[in-house]
């Protein structure tokens, strides 16, 4: 049985539905990242689980026990927030100790705090007041407080939002191990797709109050259920173009792209093609099947990759993302030929936006 079970949960404010039909399970030691743009109900979901809001429908069970009548402090839930929410008049030590005070002897409190402080590398600033801490230390203190009471469920609401890029990257590397050690089931909210992919065992993509897809980072990236999900993952974001499947091929204005055999089941279907920029590769010549001739409008380096803005003959603009260290990068104004690697080509029904599975089912 899962440590956390959310079943058909719904929440409305003044009859406006904010969350609908949310079902989600999380096991001990598992990290579920709740991902979506702002205003999709991520924080509301955490508040419902914490008991800070009452559901309009559905149920939440923790460790097999229904939470309907259980007050927040008895749910075994720890929380940390993007604004840290530390008590300003308490030292870092007292902040971390605060959830332990009611239930444990002082000696136990001391050992509990020092253990988690050490883990988070803030043992040297425990006597400091929050105003004396850097943002990074505040954020670690806030995490330590959430972890101190060994909660069954750990709810983290975009905890890296307000720390600088360097620290965010370091924490991204460190957090999975730290969170797994806690043995809690973790729900982690973020709007950063890279953070979601780096941290998650599974990602729950929340869009407009509905779970669009719950799956491993791998599945989300390589087999997005819908165009909306595909557009949220990837930098640069996926290229999108209206198209049609004809004779088992994808008919674009600028090229006819061969497709895997299974797609023949959708012949005659209007689709939206999603093409990952890293799946657009330079081709040797125009005779390669599916080759597209284009002009390089702009060359924009992106870390160790180079992004090309390409314009095909029909006027279609699309992006290619090439490793900078590979073959020579063309210059702005150059004429090039590109081809699309099948693994980075995703097709969606134009009406519904749902993924068309390459095996022809769906």
């Amino acid at each position: 049985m899962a440590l956390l079970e959310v079943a058909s949960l719904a929440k409305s404010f003044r009859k406006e539905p904010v969350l609908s039909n949310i079902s989600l399970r999380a096991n001990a030691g598992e990290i579920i990242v709740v991902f979506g743009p702002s205003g999709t109900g991520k924080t509301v979901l955490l508040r419902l689980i914490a008991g800070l809001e009452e559901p309009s429908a559905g149920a939440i069970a923790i460790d097999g026990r229904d939470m309907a009548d259980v007050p927040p402090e008895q749910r075994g839930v720890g929380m940390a927030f993007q604004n840290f929410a530390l008590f300003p008049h308490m030292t870092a030590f007292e902040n971390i100790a605060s959830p332990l005070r009611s239930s444990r002897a002082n000696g136990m409190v001391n050992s509990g705090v020092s253990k988690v402080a050490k883990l988070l590398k803030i043992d040297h600033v425990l006597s400091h007041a929050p105003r004396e801490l850097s943002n990074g230390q505040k954020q670690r203190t806030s995490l330590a407080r959430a972890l101190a009471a060994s909660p069954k469920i750990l709810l983290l609401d975009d905890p890296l939002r307000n720390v600088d890029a360097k620290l965010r990257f370091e924490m991204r590397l460190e957090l999975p191990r730290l969170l797994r050690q806690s043995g809690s089931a973790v729900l982690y909210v973020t709007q950063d797709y890279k953070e979601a992919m780096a941290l998650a065992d599974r990602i729950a993509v929340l869009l407009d109050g509905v779970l669009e897809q719950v799956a491993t980072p791998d599945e989300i990236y390589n087999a997005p259920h819908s165009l909306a999900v595909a557009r949220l993952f990837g930098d640069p974001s996926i290229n999108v173009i209206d198209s049609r499947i004809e004779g088992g091929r994808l008919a674009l204005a600028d090229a006819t792209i061969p497709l895997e055999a299974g797609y023949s089941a959708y012949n005659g279907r209007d689709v939206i093609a999603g093409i990952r920029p890293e799946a657009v590769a330079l081709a040797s010549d125009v005779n390669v099947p599916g080759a597209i001739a284009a002009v390089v409008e702009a060359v924009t380096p992106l870390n160790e990759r180079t992004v090309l803005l390409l314009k095909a003959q029909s006027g279609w603009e699309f992006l290619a993302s090439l490793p900078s260290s590979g073959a020579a990068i063309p210059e702005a104004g150059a004429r090039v030929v590109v081809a699309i690697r099948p693994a980075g080509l995703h097709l969606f029904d134009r009406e519904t936006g749902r993924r068309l599975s390459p095996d022809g089912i769906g």
Partner: protein
Amino acid sequence: MMASELVLEHVDKVYRPRGKQPVVAVKDLSLDIRPGEITALLGSSGCGKTSTLRMIAGFEDVSAGAIRLDGKPIHTLPPARRGVAMAFEAYSLYPPLTIRENIDFALRSSRLSAAERKRRVHEVAELLEISDILDKYPAFVSGGQQQRAGLGRALVRNAKLCLLDEPMGQLEPQLRAMLRGRIKHFLRSHASTTILVTHDQTEANALADRIAVMEDGVLQQYATPAELKNRPANLFVGAFIGEPPMNLLAARVDISDSRIRFALEEGGSVLAFTDSEIGVALRDRLRGLERVTIGVRPHALRLGEGPIRARVSSCQWLGDQTHVAAELGTMTVVSVSHEKIRAPAGREITLSIHPNDLHVFESDTGRAIAHGGRMA
């Protein structure tokens, strides 16, 4: 229209708040921005980049030095007479005007025909994907759309000099890469000399021909994105440019039997290179130096056979790249690969550095000594 050249000569900016110590915001800054070039001023908050832009625009006086546009000093002219177009993050749209009127307003003092003004507004609206909101008022569009409209107002003028202050911070992630490309293409084809202020190195790298990296009011390096990455002038630039940041390793130098050995202070591994791998000049330069700092970019720290032993602490795949973090003594190094790889936490691995990818810095001053065997 000919593109303009902008030159900053030994420019200082000192703020003198009453009753307090003077604050030096910009110190002895010299930059030569070529006609049609896109230059980014890059640095963290307080580095002097915004003060510099404000001096160019004429919102601030220069405390010392000169600013010349096509040879003529402009630092004494009022802002309106400098022929400069601007898009500022905080430079809000006029609320009582529609988006279309806001953009067109930038052309009010031009002598363009009504038809030409209309064509230009249409052109930048298409480019920035705001054609469908042209008749809305600023209060009724999103932050990202407002920012795009602000950019439109700057681009539509085809000014000799275009100043952009954090112009893309609010842009929708789905549009960002596409708009960067289009804006770069637009600035190029209109031969606009452009200065872009940003704290976001991704934006600077994508748009700029050259980047001026600033810290504490001092120019650290002014170079192309590739040069900043491959030949950083000092440890600050090396660590600041690049995501994830460069791995920096303290090492003891040992030169004997025609080999140079770097003994890493963390983890105890030893890197050995021959003269033919990293050059006699570097060997001679390292003689007499006891300690140096070795830099290696995450993409150049390669998994597989190699002299550096480490233990995997995390392995994260991000769709188009894998980040492997590994412990080397008490520090963490990061290796990035374009491929998808699996390296479970706890596994012992070895790593290598190709001599062409080796950066060597003076430990005490931070100055670069050599990059890939070529002297700095």
